[in-house]
């Protein structure tokens, strides 16, 4: 047996079972992440199966239910009561999950994909391109997040699609910075040097050697960004910048009008609010769990 063979065998013996399978094992042992997964599962299930689960349509009105100017609370027919126009709140919450999920996924995808390209190009090429891209990101970061989103919505006009774009654009510099740092750290690794010395082309090195290794912080940030996106979208909806058709069951928009009816019908505020809290909490818990699972340094600490 030659020395090379001996060393090879040693490396094989020491090789861990892989980052992802180990991370997965750590994740399913984390009670917080389990609870978070449960919340997110409920949220996604509500979004997908809304037409099956909801007893009424999201826009079905029954004005006969309105007594003395406002709305009866929870009953056996309407589990979470009805709103100002006699619409079933439970059904609207279920359908609202669709909007929040859709907006969250689309806006995080926008931020992640554009940020991913900009950040990895900046980090990998360096030099002038890096400075140019990162200074633009600095400018975008110089405007506080929600204000930036408000500005974009003011430009594009209120509406569902515009809100998605706005929250997505706000996320771009965050992902770009993260990716750039990650790529810079990976670029100096020996395997990159090895790939370059055997003549692998630059885009191939970036996409098949560097990026896969730089992904774990992005996955964590992506999960946490889902949480922030849901809150931001609800915030924009609350400010009246969301979907302009008031019948749209968007959670933030549902909270807009209730301000005036707090005295008589507090559940109209509490129900959509709790829906937001639960879904956001779910993504935050999973994000925290993922961070702990993917970062070996954090192992054993809370």
């Amino acid at each position, binding site marked *: 047996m030659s020395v090379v063979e001996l060393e090879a065998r040693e490396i094989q013996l020491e090789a861990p079972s892989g980052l992802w399978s180990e991370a997965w094992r750590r994740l399913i042992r984390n009670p917080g992440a389990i609870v978070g997964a449960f919340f997110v599962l409920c949220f996604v299930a509500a979004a997908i199966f809304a037409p099956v689960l909801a007893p009424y349509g999201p826009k079905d009105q029954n004005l006969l239910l309105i007594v003395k100017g406002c709305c009866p609370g929870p009953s056996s027919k309407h589990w979470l009561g009805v709103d100002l126009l006699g619409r079933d709140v439970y059904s609207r919450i279920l359908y609202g999950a669709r909007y929040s999920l859709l907006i969250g996924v689309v806006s995080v995808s926008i931020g992640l994909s554009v940020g991913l390209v900009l950040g990895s190009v900046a980090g990998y090429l360096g030099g002038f391109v890096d400075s140019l891209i990162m200074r633009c990101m600095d400018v975008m970061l*110089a405007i506080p997040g*929600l204000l930036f989103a408000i*500005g974009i*919505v003011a430009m594009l006009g209120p509406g569902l699609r515009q809100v998605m774009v706005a929250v997505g654009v706000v996320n771009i510099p965050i992902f770009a910075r993260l990716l750039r740092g990650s790529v810079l750290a990976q670029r100096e690794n020996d395997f990159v040097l090895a790939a370059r010395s055997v003549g692998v082309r630059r885009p191939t090195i970036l996409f098949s050697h560097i990026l896969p290794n730089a992904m774990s912080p992005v996955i964590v940030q992506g999960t946490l960004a889902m949480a922030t996106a849901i809150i931001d979208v*609800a915030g924009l909806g*609350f400010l009246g910048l969301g979907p302009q058709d008031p019948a749209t069951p968007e959670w933030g928009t549902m*909270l807009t009008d209730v301000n005036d009816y707090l005295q008589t019908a507090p559940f109209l*505020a509490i129900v959509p*609010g709790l829906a937001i*809290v639960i879904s956001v909490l779910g993504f935050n818990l999973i994000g925290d769990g993922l961070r702990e699972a993917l970062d070996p340094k954090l192992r054993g600490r809370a």
Partner: protein
Amino acid sequence: MLRYLVRRLFLLVPILLGVSLLIFFWIRALPGGPAESLLGERATPALVAAYRKRYGLDKPVYQQYVTYLKTTFVDRDLGVSVASRRTVFSEIRQRFPATVELSVAAMIFAVGLGIPLGFVAAKRHGGVFDHLSLVGSLIGISIPIFFLAIILKYIFAVRLAWLPSVGRISVLIDMKHPTNFYVLDAIIERNWSALWDVLKHLILPAIALGSIPLAIVTRITRAAVLDVQNEDYVRTARAKGLAPLTVDRRHVLRNALLPVSTIIGLQTGLLLSGAVLTETVFAYPGMGSWLRDAIFSRDYPVLQGGILFLAFVFVVVNLIVDLSYAIINPRIRYS
């Protein structure tokens, strides 16, 4: 240190110019152009032309940008609000103190409660209180500010009627406002009933706005204290027989608060964003509710000037935070 400061100040210039360019082109990119958007349905060609002339929109773009820079940095009035006909800057002078007052109150709430909570949680690491603080801070960052604000308003203003639900000060109170910081104004004027009234108006919005910083400060304090506790110098201090309280105060807390101070500075952007929502719920006359109204009344000079001003404040605060590290932590030296 001085060289670092000068370099950072120079770096501010391109960022602020970038922000101003971004906002400038943002206004020009409005559907139908700013004149049409301002006039709305009343836009006849003659009126549009008059507006374009009045606001200098008929000149070439680079000239417009120069004019815009001039009103921003030389005249510093930031243009005239369409809704109120007053200069944007004079409105900012009135409204910005309100938002600062609210943000400071929110930070006092967050820091004053967050540091002790995080410290106790770390001291009882693994105990019930520790777990409660972790769960609590997670819920804290998951509650939308405006939802918390509505709930607080419902419980303490509507149901219990302990605190006022809207505004900065009761309409019946007559007071001069030399600084527009109402708390300061009341102290300067020695008007104690007004001071009490202003403080009462601050409590609920400050708690709502401070909830996320509170959660973050608690978490960071806890993590930092846990870190510092295992340092050699802490063990040495304990080994030489210092009283536990002295060790905690002089060795643990003082070092643990370094990362906390970093986090406190980073909350500025969050506070400015959150102010829009909090001020809307409590009808609090600060920058946030002003910008929100400006969107609906298409008051573009206000949006343009207000957002630029807040971006400026945000960048400067970040710079001050960076510099303050060196003062708080002698181990950091900028070069």
